[in-house]
């Protein structure tokens, strides 16, 4: 069963960003419209993998397209599959023009915008119009923006994690709730929003992955809300190229983009003094959209010296978490049985019950382990392997406990007239690789549901032909 984190890791290995598959499904016309803005080309370029980026760069300054053979002579034998994949991806994104088998060339819109982005100049006004500096009201400091983004984001996560526990945390806005529901992270249950199993998995992802997951859902809802997808995307990309701590003017924005300001304010991507304000500042959540830097300011939980990691896990299953952050405590509560809480420390243990509770919520063992690894205390990083092997193995074993029975749908074939008949059909089924269980003494075997049509046809042909 491939877990969600497993998929994410795979994607990272191939360095395929979550947004790229979404972009691939868009029509050529809308992509071409998107590529008209230099501020969209640059972030898309950054989302690509290293080989793709190099290919784009190699082609960027060429006036005419070149034969594919010329370019592939630059590729080593080991890089051949990578190169073909890259060409394939770039074609599907319509960054390369269509006939890649013979000639390589960037699509004109992408080429001219990318050139403009790199060299500067032009009159696209796509990188955001900075607001005039105002002597009376200063732009918010970076610290204030960080605090704001963190507060917004944690409100959402905290609401999710404590739904159904009876606590009443601050509710995020209606828009956010709707988005969470649509994404399947929360569901209505007896008139109340309850977190779902995919919601639990969501909580253990990195903030960067969480953010993109929500934004992708937002993008998918754009059409329903009668918004222009290209406008929405280019606004997101524009935000990602903006500078933290600077104010931008809303004057050049289209109506769609002004409507987005409200939504993005709820997610904590941008900050505005008040809803009618004519200027806005992007927060770190927005400016790191296309990078792998942590999108949320670190070291806010216990103040100062600490970096991201705060969890110490011992071989005796004891867990010490140096945090006073209610969100982190609540997330830990998902799979740790907490013994005692101090102002800056949570002490607990990983037990069979606590892990089983998490597993029942749909969280997988891999997710627990990857969460513990991501947030391990710097002291833990000296250990090799980072987490005690005993604990890791035990968590995996507890997961296996739940998977003792594997159900598989299929058909039982019995009452063969003779041993020869039985073996003949069995052989055929074996060739199809659909036999799940067999018993020669009883002359019966069990085949999976996929093979049924074939086997049935085979038997019918045989009995029909024989008699």
């Amino acid at each position: 069963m491939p877990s969600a984190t497993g998929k994410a890791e795979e994607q990272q290995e191939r360095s395929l960003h979550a947004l790229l598959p979404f972009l691939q499904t868009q029509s050529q016309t809308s992509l071409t419209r998107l590529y008209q803005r230099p501020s969209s080309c640059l972030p898309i370029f950054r989302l690509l993998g290293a080989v793709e980026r190099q290919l784009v760069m190699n082609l960027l300054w060429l006036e005419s397209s070149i034969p594919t053979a010329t370019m592939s002579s630059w590729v080593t034998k080991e890089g051949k599959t990578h190169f073909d994949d890259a060409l394939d991806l770039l074609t599907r994104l319509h960054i390369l023009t269509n006939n890649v088998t013979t000639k390589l060339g960037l699509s004109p819109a992408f080429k001219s915008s990318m050139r403009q982005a790199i060299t500067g100049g032009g009159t696209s006004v796509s990188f955001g119009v900075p607001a005039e500096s105002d002597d009376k009201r200063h732009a918010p400091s970076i610290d204030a923006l960080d605090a704001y983004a963190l507060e917004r984001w944690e409100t959402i996560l905290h609401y999710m994690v404590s739904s159904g526990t009876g606590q009443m945390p601050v509710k995020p806005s209606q828009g956010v709730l709707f988005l969470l529901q649509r994404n399947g992270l929360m569901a209505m249950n007896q008139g109340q929003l309850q977190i779902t199993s995919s919601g639990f998995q969501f909580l253990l992802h990195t903030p960067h992955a969480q953010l993109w997951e929500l934004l992708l859902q937002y993008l998918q809802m754009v059409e329903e809300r009668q918004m222009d997808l290209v406008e929405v995307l280019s606004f997101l990309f524009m935000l990602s190229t903006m500078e933290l701590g600077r104010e931008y003017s809303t004057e050049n924005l289209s109506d769609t983009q002004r409507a987005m300001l409200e939504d993005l304010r709820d997610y904590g991507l941008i900050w505005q003094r008040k809803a009618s304000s004519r200027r806005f500042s992007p927060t770190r959540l927005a400016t790191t959209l296309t990078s792998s830097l942590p999108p949320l300011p670190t070291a806010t939980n216990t103040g100062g010296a600490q970096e991201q990691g705060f969890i110490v896990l011992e071989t005796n299953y004891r867990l010490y978490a140096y945090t006073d952050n209610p969100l982190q405590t609540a997330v830990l509560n998902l799979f740790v049985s907490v013994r005692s809480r101090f102002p800056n420390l949570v002490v607990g243990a990983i037990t069979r019950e606590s892990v089983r509770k998490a597993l029942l919520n749909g969280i997988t063992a891999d997710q627990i382990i990857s969460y513990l690894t991501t947030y391990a205390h710097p002291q833990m990083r000296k250990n090799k392997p980072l987490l005690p092997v005993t604990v890791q193995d035990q968590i995996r074993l507890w997961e296996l406990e739940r998977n003792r029975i594997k159900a598989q749908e299929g058909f039982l074939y019995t009452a063969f007239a003779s041993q020869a008949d039985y073996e003949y059909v069995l052989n055929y089924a074996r060739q199809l690789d659909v036999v799940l269980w067999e018993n020669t003494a009883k002359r019966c075997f069990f085949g999976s549901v996929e093979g049924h049509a074939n086997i049935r046809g085979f038997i019918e042909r045989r009995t029909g032909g024989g008699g």
Partner: protein
Amino acid sequence: MDRSCHLSLIIDLSPSQWHLSAQPTNPHPLSFQTFLSLVLTFLNSHIAAKHENTLAVFGALPGKSTMLYSSLDADSSNTNDPPADANSYRPFKFVNTIVTKNIQKELDLLEGLTEEPPVTLVGALTMALCYINRLAHPPPGSVATETTTEADARILILSVSPDLSASYIPVMNSIFSAQKLRVTIDVCKVYGEETVFLQQAAHLTGGSYIYLERRDAFLQYLTMSFLPPPSIRHMMAVPRQDKVDFRAACFCHKNIVDIGFVCSVCLSIFCSPVPVCSTCRTKFPMKTLQRLNASRPSIPPANGVSNGSPRPPSARPSQGMSASLR
């Protein structure tokens, strides 16, 4: 996940060489202005590739070397901010403005100079290595983000000046430091003769050395050969030199020698047999000197395959000098 990478660029800013390079009598004249705008485009491409990519630019000037830009200082130096502009990506604009301004400032300082001392390429190279070392080992206590410590670092030298044989030892030492830091040194010879030492630098650190033949295609050369970070070079091949000039410079007269004589104790290189090694004060027997002197012309100069490893002194009780073939 592909990692961020650091690029330290060293620009050779020798006014006389650039003047020669811009002469219209050249097959493809390249003026410094054109060169600079192409280099800035290349730098922007490097930062464009990844949000976390870092950059440092060093200038090798006549008689001094200086840092022209560093992305570490970029955040703090808000005093000389370029005006915000909605048409360009700010980090790009920032690099362009700062680099151009600093080069102009340094070149203005050179105005009064009547005689041009040779450019201190080694100084710039050492500065670049120190900078990379600082990135790799952040001081304890500072908030070290993982991106900077893990970054792949490489150095690109854009050279126009000829080899300075006096700097043989410092160049070799820099190469060894680079090997130890696992820094790749790429060299692009933009104008002038091939340089022996930089060829060796690129070869020994696994970088690529390119002699710019078509100078009108400078940007394409830069993009295709020097933009790919070392981590993807096993997939996107970059040109390597097929022959490397391994000649060394002698320690006594700083000449590049075809046949050198190597001290069997400390491996110092000399252009002729000497009775006493100037480095380690080892005395050599008269007999050996005579033998070496006698055999000198008979050694064919083309027979240069072994790279001159002398016999270990313990193997022969009587110390002697060994002839080194390059």
